[in-house]
Each structure stands twice: as C-alpha cells, then as structure tokens.
C-alpha cells in the first residue's frame, strides 16, 4: 500500500512524492534526524511507558487497598514500586519533556532544526534502548542465584542494599545500566537544546525576546548537565563495587552508605526541577493565550526560573534529614529549601496577575492549566511543611511524602502536559482534539486525582511508611488506602479517554489551520503540521510576541518592551 504526497518546497513549488510502502515509512522514521519526528517519537515512547507504569501503579494500589492483602507477593511488590518509580522518572518524564522541547524549541525561535540533528537521533535511540533494557530485566535477569528478575531496590537504590551481597544476581545491574544510558541520552539532548537556543535564534530574537518556554528549556537543559552527571558518576562507582570489588559504598570496608545518598540526591533533587521547569514552560505559553493577555512580569519570570535552577542545586539533603547529619547541616538545608519557595511563589503570583484583568476562555488546555495552578500551589505548601526538618522527622519516608511528590508529578507536571497536548496537538497534526472528550478526561481525571492524592496524606500522618507491601489492620490505615485505590481506577479511566481522544482526533478531528487559538508565538505562523523545513523564509522578530505585533499593528508589543 503506497501513498502519494504533495510536498511544498522551500521555494513554493509543488512536487508529488511517492509516499512509499509502510516499510518505507518505518525506514523514514528510523533514520530521521528531523527534530519534529524525533520529538514525536520521544512522546509516543513516553506514552507507552506511561501506560505500563500506570499498570504497575494499579497493581500496587490493588495490593494496598486492604490490610494483609495477598494479591502480589512481597518480592513482586518491591519490584513494582522500583520499576514504577524508575520508569516514570526516566522513561516517561524525561522523554516526554524532551520530546516537547525537541518539537517546539526550533519552531519557537525561528530555526529549521536543532543544532546537532544526528546527535538528536542518537540521543533518542540510546534512551529508547535503555527503556527496553530495563524491561528486559523481567525476563532476562534471573542469573545464577535465580535471585533476579526486575530490580527491587527502590528507584533511589540506596547502598548497601545494592551491593552484590545484598542484591545478588543481575537485577540491580539492569537498573544501573538502563538509567546510565538514559542519562547519556538526556545529556545529549540537553546539549542540543542549549546549543540550539544560544546559536540558532532567528534574526532579532535577542535572549530577552525569547518565549518563556524557550527560557525554561534553556534553564532545564543547563541544569541537566550538572544534575544527571552526578548520578552517572555514582552509577559507575556502584558498578565498580559490584564487579571489580571496589569499596565506594562497601560499609564492611569502611565505605559510606551516606555517600551514595549524597550523590543520589545531588542528582535527585535538581532532577525534579528538571521535570517541573518544562511544566512551567507550558503554562507560561498557554495561560496568556487563554487569558488574552501578555504574561505578567516577563523579566521576573526569567529571573525566577534561573533562580530556581541555581537554588535547586543546594537543597538536596532535605531528603536526608533523618540520616543524622547534625543540627548545622539540617538547619542549612531547611533554609535553602524554604528559600526556593520565594521564586516559585513569584511565578504563581505572576500567573495569577496574568489572568487578572484578562478574558479567560475555558478551553481544555486552560482547564488543565487551572488544575495545575491550584495543585501546584498545594504541592508547594506541603513541600514547605516537609522542609521544616522536625516535621520531616515524622513525615519523611511516609505516605505524606509520597502524596506530596505525586501532587507535583501528577497534579502539576502531568496536568501541564495534558494542557500542552491539547494546545499543540492541532499544530502537530493539523486537527483539533475533541473538546467534549477533553472535558470528560479533565473531570474524571481531576476527581480521581484528588480522591487518590488528597486522601493519601492521611495514612502518612497516621504513621504509614512507604514501600511496604502490606500493613496490619490495627493501624487504622485501611479505609484511607481503599479510597486512594478507588481514585486510581477513576484516573485510569480518564487517562484511557485521553488516549482514545488522541487517536480518534487524528482521523476525525476538525481541521485546525495555522493558528486555531489566536496565539502569538512563531510556531503558529507555520502550516499545521509544519513542513520539514519549518519556515520557508526565516522570520525576523521585533518583540516577544511577533504574531501579536502582526495582528495588532496599531499597538505592537515592541512599543512596550524595554
């Protein structure tokens, strides 16, 4: 089955091209270096892993719904939470955010592709392989002691549990190698994004005129260099311990378990900012368009984003308040963690001020952004509670923490991602997603989200630690866990509606045209979907909202920007 495509060349001439068989199509995607295709592959790949990790979560929630349950064995449960966490961070979060970045950044800065297209492809394929490698552990890792199968050391793999003696077989090595390779891919893509932003902006687009999404991807990618590398180093050390008999984390030889914790959290904390900054990026673009107003306080938003990036490197030991680091160290990390709430709060206030005085349109992207705003606010506030070390001594490593970080990861980041999907889907595919299905998705998901994650705080407050495969009936945790599990089912339904919407809109969605949302950044000036070369003529810009200037020549932004 072959297709014929009509392709518009860069000089406007039309050519008919034999689309080729499905095999040709596969070959085209396998060998592409086009940032748009690579971006879409990242996103598609991440969605598949989202569904897999979601199933892992559902299995855990069924096991925990009632006390002393026997749905899965402790060994399987421990693998489930390890795989769920590892997959969500490295094979859903990172790829999906890099996917959107790959797609949008060149378009928004008026470039034709990323700075290093082949590195782009390489980074994707390395990351993709890493995910497959991790899941191969389910079948391949049994090893000599039959002590393998999927890794079961938790997504932060504390030492010395990961030492050869406590984790025989190869399951831990699958974790180490898969995450290591994913890190290589992440560093490669981050390098590409930074270089593209610094070196390939179109004429007139000074740094102070870049869309905030581009700024946030610049900060996020820069953060990746100093964030992912410590984990890479620590994993090299762990592998040397496991295979060459070194003693980095070997407590029997005088090594330190706490050293792994430091190295891991020097990665792990900034990593969550790596994940959340692109969420801010999406909200920064979507809220103004659906409030019909420019973003309030662009310079402060840039400063706050950069500030968050820097401060995030100094807060890591708030994951270690219970390790016994001493009052001085604990006090310092309390301070740094609380300080980061200042630039974060500024961002929330600026979004509020953007909406204030505007004309708010409640299309599906905006509804998810509103969900984001409320939920990110709450997540930040529970974060401040946890930042108070004495609070953390009780609540750390309990379900309160699990509730807090899922509030950020699902309530903020995933909601912002949904918003981004509904907003940019028309640009990517040329079709609108169904608003009706979108609203079903939104309401089901937000109800399920709050059922699960609001009530999840309670068992934490009542003393339930995390990573336990079951619990006694006499602790009073059973009822709350049941509600949490029910909420998970509701979210799953909402998610399935979303996936259905993605697929059916591709074939039956309304035609979108260049600019269905009446927006103001450069990507909306191209056809939908954009041609391979993005722009026939590379644009020149005079302000932060080039399309606003074109649509409002009597009142351009360039008159107001300093």
């Amino acid at each position: 089955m072959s297709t014929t495509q009509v392709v518009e060349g860069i000089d406007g001439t039309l050519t008919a091209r034999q689309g080729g068989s499905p095999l040709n199509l596969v070959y085209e995607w396998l060998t592409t270096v086009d940032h748009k295709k690579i971006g879409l592959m990242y996103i598609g790949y991440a969605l598949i892993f989202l569904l897999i990790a979601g199933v892992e979560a559902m299995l855990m929630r069924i096991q925990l719904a009632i006390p002393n349950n026997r749905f899965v064995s402790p060994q399987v449960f421990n693998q489930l939470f390890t795989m769920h966490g590892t997959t969500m961070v490295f094979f859903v979060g990172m790829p999906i955010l890099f996917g959107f970045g790959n797609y949008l950044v060149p378009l928004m800065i008026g470039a034709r592709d990323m700075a290093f297209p082949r590195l782009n492809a390489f980074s994707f394929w390395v990351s993709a392989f890493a995910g497959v490698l991790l899941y191969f552990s389910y079948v391949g890792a049994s090893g000599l002691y039959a002590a393998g199968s999927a890794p079961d050391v938790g997504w932060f793999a504390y030492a010395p549990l990961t030492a050869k003696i406590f984790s025989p077989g190869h399951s831990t090595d699958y974790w180490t190698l898969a995450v290591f390779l994913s890190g290589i891919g992440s560093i490669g893509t981050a390098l590409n994004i930074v270089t593209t932003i610094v070196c390939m902006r179109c004429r007139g687009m000074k740094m102070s005129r870049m869309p905030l999404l581009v700024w946030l991807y610049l900060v996020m990618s820069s953060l990746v260099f100093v964030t992912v590398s410590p984990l890479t180093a620590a994993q090299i050390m762990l592998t040397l311990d496991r295979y060459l008999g070194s003693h980095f984390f070997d407590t029997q030889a005088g090594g330190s378990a706490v050293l792994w914790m430091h190295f891991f959290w020097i990665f792990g904390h900034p990593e969550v900012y790596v994940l959340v900054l692109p969420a801010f990026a999406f909200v920064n673009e979507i809220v103004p368009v659906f409030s019909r107003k420019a973003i309030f306080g662009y310079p402060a938003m840039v400063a706050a984003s950069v500030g968050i990036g820097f401060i995030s490197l100094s807060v890591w030991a708030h994951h270690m308040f219970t390790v016994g680091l001493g009052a001085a160290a604990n006090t310092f990390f309390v301070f740094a963690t609380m300080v980061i709430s200042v630039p974060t709060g500024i961002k929330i206030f600026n979004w509020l001020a953007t909406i204030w005085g505007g004309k708010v349109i409640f299309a599906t992207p905006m509804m998810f952004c509103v969900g984001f705003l409320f939920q990110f606010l709450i997540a930040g506030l529970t974060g401040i509670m946890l930042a108070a070390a004495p609070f953390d001594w009780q609540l750390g490593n309990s379900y309160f923490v699990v509730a807090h970080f899922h509030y950020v990861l699902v309530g903020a980041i995933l909601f912002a991602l949904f918003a981004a999907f509904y907003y940019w889907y028309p640009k990517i595919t040329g079709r609108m997603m169904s608003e009706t299905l979108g609203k079903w998705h939104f309401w089901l998901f937000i109800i399920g989200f709050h059922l699960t994650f609001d009530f999840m705080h309670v068992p934490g407050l009542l003393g339930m630690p995390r990573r336990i495969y079951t619990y006694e009936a006499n602790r009073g945790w059973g009822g709350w866990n049941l509600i949490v599990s029910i909420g998970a089912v509701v979210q799953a339904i909402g998610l399935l509606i979303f996936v259905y919407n993605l697929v059916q809109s591709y074939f039956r969605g309304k035609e979108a045209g260049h600019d269905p949302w009446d927006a103001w950044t450069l990507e909306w000036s191209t056809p939908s979907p954009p041609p391979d070369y993005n722009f026939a003529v590379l644009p020149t810009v005079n302000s932060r909202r080039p399309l606003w200037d074109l649509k409002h020549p009597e009142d351009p932004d360039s008159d107001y920007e300093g």
Partner: protein
Amino acid sequence: MLVLSVTLAIFLIVAGLLLYALIRYRHRPEDAHREPAQVYGSNQIELSWTVIPILIVVMLFLTTARVIIGTQAIPKPNNAMNVTVIGHQFWWEYRYPKLGIVTANELHIPVGNPANSAPTYLNMSSADVAHSFWVPRLAGKTDVIPNRVNTMWIDPEQPGLYLGQCAQYCGTQHAKMLIRVYAQSPADFAAWVSLQKQPGQQSFAGNPAAAEGHAVFMRNACINCHTISGTVATGRFGPDLTHLASRDTIGSGAIQNTPENLRKWVDDPNSLKPGCLMPAMHLNDRDLDAITAYLTQLR
C-alpha cells in the same frame, strides 16, 4: 502548628484570589472581538510579593531552626538509660549495656513524669543495610545505617504499647520489620529487667519434651545463628532467644507468639514471612514438637 497555619493561610488567600479571578474575568460572548488591556508588569506589585514571602520564609526558618537545635544539639541528660539498637534484615536487636541484657524485637523502657524524667537514649547502627527506627507516637524517625552510629532519645510519660516499624526500605520483608515499644511503670520495668537478666532455662524437670527439644536445638544449626545464654548457642546473626517466650510476637512483630505459630516458623519461616533470612530447618515432626516445647518455656 505554626507551619500548618501559615501554609493554610497562604493557600486560602492565593487559591481564593485565583478562583475569584477565574470567575470575574471569564470570557463573555460580548467580548468576542476585543482584547483586554495588555499589562506587562508592575514593579511595585512584584516587589511586594517578593519581599513578603521572604519575610514569611525567614520567620518559618527561624522557628524551625530553634526546634532543630533544641532537639539535636542539646547535651545528653545524666539520668538517661542507654540502649544500643542494631538493625538487621528484618528484625531489631536491643542491648542494654549497663543492665547486661540482650533481647530482640521488643523494646521495654520506663516511663517518666514531668518531675522525674526517665529518658531512654538510643545508640543505633545497622548490621547490614540502611534501616530507620520510627515509632510515630514517641518521636520522629532516625535512620539506622551501617558503619555509622546515630543517636536519638525518647521519653514517654504514658505507659502502654507504642507501635512502629522500619521506615527505610531494606529488602523483601521491610514491611514486617515492626517495632514494639513497651513503656512501663518503673516497678514493671524493674521486674522485666530482673527476668531478662536470668540465663536461659537449664532444668526441665517434669518436661521431657522440653529437655529433648533442648538437645535437638543444641545439636542443630540453630546455635550458629541464635544465642541462648548459658548454653553453647552463641550465634549473633539471628535474634537472641533466651527469653523468647516472654515476647508477644515472633518474626519482629509479624506473627503472634503461640506454640502453633512457633512450630510453623521453625518448620519453614518463609511460609509466614516470605523473604526473611532464616532458612527452613527441615526437621522431622518429632524434633519439631520437641523444639516447640523447649522454646515455649524460654520465659
């Protein structure tokens, strides 16, 4: 409480303003062709919502710092009772150095009162991987890490049983590494101490099954992992069993301590606590009965 009220206040104010803005400034059909006034920023407003949060943060920080220093940096009281806590996969070892007691899985401590505090000072380390000691109603958690000694103190005023569990993932049976703290009146505690100081039962007059069980125990691999004071069993890998029958549970709180459960446990521990590190002993029925009879009278 302060932290909660501050964060709650912030939530109500910001969420309230957000809700108000979304309703008041929603798009109405008659607005369709006009854009609202484009406001790009305001230095005064932005300055105020930078300075006010900084002040709130400073205030929260100072109050928190005071609590941290008040808990972690104070000198150790003289009348504290020292207990050494050693975390294992998947059980807790408790040693009372001054009292000469070694026990497992049940931590007995005296209660104090405002006039006479009786703090218990815990010196904690791990024999294998990282654990965490958490009894929510007594104190925050403190991690129990190999090659490192962490300390904390507890000082309950109400007698009773306080439940907790390991709070740092440590392997397959992390979920069943439970903690039972028995806070007792000074008299009850003294009685418990004097009982625990006795060596293991040596004479089994009138209890031939127990005598036989004693012999079975001493000639099997049990002695490699367990200690029963006054006998040749001096293993340190598993819990001290000298006063096993005085404890309410076995398997670190996982199972009630009854003869049936004890028999099942010795036969195949993994049937009751899958993934625990004690292997099945593969004893025949007669030996199992004997050992159970022996263990049940190790009071």
